[in-house]
């Protein structure tokens, strides 16, 4: 009672005013204006995607709507010269597939091995020293890789296989160098997946008498498989969309061939070469570029979506 009374005596003056204070929610114009602006900034990204789809789709529609371009010609013939009426997409698609395949053959095993070494074997100090080196590899602009492919990898391949077999511009050297470019991406994403595997799994395997290698391959690797799969898919998407390496080293001119030592232009390389020259708006060459770009966009979009879905699933399992 006493203490209660005392508190009434010392009750601050402002308490009386507080009763008249309106604490209900007010609309603040400035606040909501700012919130709207911020929302618009976030929404711009959706707008960009829509713009990509609309602009690419509009020109691609003109291309596919042209009476000369038929489904049978597009997928049934093997010459790509849209300027003079040849609309067979296959030479560009096969060379894109071959360079990407070579890149993945190089980068997947190497990247995975590097990731396993860094996450399972390397002592923490070595890992701290080695990871920045891989980051440097990831930060080098692709045009520099193009220089490397043309002036280092191609002569190297020519020395190994002979100048008759290996042309100056060829898909193999572009593919291999692309693999080196993608390697750090695969290794860092795989390493993240491997490190996310709970320690208890490893301890369990060791307790059963497994060697370090058996633990890594039979316990840790399967547990991280979805993350590694996501890395692999992102790697393919990067390889398909990569431009400068193939534009410099893989050759300039569509060529329907399955020989990796021959020159053949990829989809991205074709866009880079044609758009770098004189291009009149609305010509068949111009619209054809948008058709190719739309295909590229859709392929990479699907690959990225799959990879993200895989990653999300995998996150849910271990957190």
């Amino acid at each position, binding site marked *: 009672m006493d203490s209660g009374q005392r508190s009434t005596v010392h009750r601050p003056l402002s308490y009386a005013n507080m009763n008249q204070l309106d604490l209900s929610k007010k609309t603040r114009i400035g606040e909501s204006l700012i919130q709207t602006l911020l929302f618009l900034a976030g929404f711009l*990204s959706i707008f960009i995607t829509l713009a990509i789809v609309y602009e690419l789709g509009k020109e691609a529609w003109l291309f596919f709507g042209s009476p000369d371009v038929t489904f049978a010609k597009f997928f049934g013939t093997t010459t790509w010269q849209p300027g003079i009426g040849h609309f067979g997409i296959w030479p560009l698609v096969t060379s894109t597939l071959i360079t990407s395949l070579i890149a993945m053959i190089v980068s997947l095993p*190497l990247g995975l091995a590097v990731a396993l070494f860094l996450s399972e074997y390397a002592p923490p100090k070595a890992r701290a020293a080695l990871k920045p080196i891989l980051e440097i590899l990831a930060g080098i602009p692709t045009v520099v890789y193009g220089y490397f492919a043309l002036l280092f990898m191609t002569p190297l391949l020519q020395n190994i296989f002979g100048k008759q077999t290996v042309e100056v511009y060829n898909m193999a050297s572009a593919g291999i160098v692309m693999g080196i470019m993608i390697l750090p991406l695969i290794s860092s994403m795989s390493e993240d997946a491997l490190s996310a595997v709970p320690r208890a799994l490893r301890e369990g395997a060791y307790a059963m008498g497994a060697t370090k290698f058996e633990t890594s391959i039979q316990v840790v690797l399967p547990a991280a498989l979805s993350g590694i799969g996501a890395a692999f898919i992102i790697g393919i998407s990067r390889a398909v969309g990569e*431009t400068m390496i193939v534009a410099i080293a893989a050759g300039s001119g569509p060529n329907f061939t399955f020989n990796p030592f021959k020159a053949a232009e990829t989809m991205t390389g074709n*866009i880079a070469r044609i758009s770098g020259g004189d291009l009149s708006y609305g010509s068949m060459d111009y619209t054809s570029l948008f058709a190719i*770009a739309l295909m590229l966009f859709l392929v990479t979009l699907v690959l990225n979506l799959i990879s993200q879905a895989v990653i999300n699933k995998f996150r849910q399992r271990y957190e």
Partner: protein
Amino acid sequence: MNQNHYPQNDSFRRTLSGRYRLANLWQGLFFTALVIAILSLVALLYNVVDGAFGYVAYEYKHAPSEFSAKPLDQLSKSELLELLKTNLSSGAFKKLDNEKPMEKRFKSDLYSLVLERLIQIDTKQTWSLTDSILHAKDIKAEVSQKYPKAKLEFRSWLTPVFLTTPMSSKAEFAGVRTAILGSLWMVGIAILFALPIGTGAAIYLQEYADKNFINRVIQTNINNLAGVPSIVYGMLGLAIFVRTFEGFTSGSMFGVTDSNGRTILSAGLTMGILVLPLIIINAQEAIKAVPDSLRQAAFGVGATRWQTVWHHVLPNALPGILTGSILAVSRAIGETAPLIVVGASTFISVDPSGPFSKFTALPIQIYQWTTRAQSEFHSIAAAAIIVLLILLLTLNATAVLLRNRVQRKY
């Protein structure tokens, strides 16, 4: 029954040693993969440095004695100027004078002008650094046999002059000044566009957005935009900035008449859109790292949401946001494909004068020089690559330093 599954004694030891052998073998293989990765990096850097220095054999089209009795390198500045005045056509001299007044140029500039315009160097062959060191004698013998009139000289293609001279059609006199300025203009515009919008989007997604459908779509969409091939952004830039908004990007709305939509502004905006997802994702991480107690304290004393963000969240997230934008800058500086599509000019010898000028950029020059057949262009491509890599290394080192400072704070 268990005895069938678990080998005992001798056979156990044999399988065990076999298992260890296998384990060691694979460990070796994993390590080899790492070594291969590092060797590729070393090979790449070696290849570039190898190309940027080395012997070069060249001939003079006109003998120096045709122009002056004294050896050229002993001439004074006024004598060099006189040489240029008498031997160049008046039109050509006027053009040079307009670019930069002749009297104000350094003696070394005039000297290289004499070499470029009057003597006219003709490069016969170049050698890599390794060849120049290991086979110097063979090279000297080869040159004296194949090009008896040629001079052989050890040359570094990367010189201070290389950085400060504009583009030229001759590799010996080409420099990267126009390209560096073009790159800086373009990156400046890209960041001015992408940094405020990207930070705004990140603030919205981290501080304001409820977990509803549209915000989830925005988030997924940003992650996907980060994976769209850069050349597709180039096509977007071509369709929107170069073609649709030509009046704005060419500057004809503002009274600039001598250009089309293929300007620095178009390229900068395209690059801004390209780096936007990168900036948003990095800024989101930085904002996420700001402790919640700060926000709660601000709300506790009655701050509104924006006051909280502006006075407490943003200042604390700023180093992280800056790190992200430095990474975005280094991405933009190295990107080539969108610039080709948007229409960077490959040959420009005038410095860009504003957002509406035509331009070239460092990676475009590297691409252009690499695809030339003559080996002296490969040498200047290598020199330009070294410039680009040093630029990127500086930027990334700054970013890493910033990141480490932030990490220490929390």
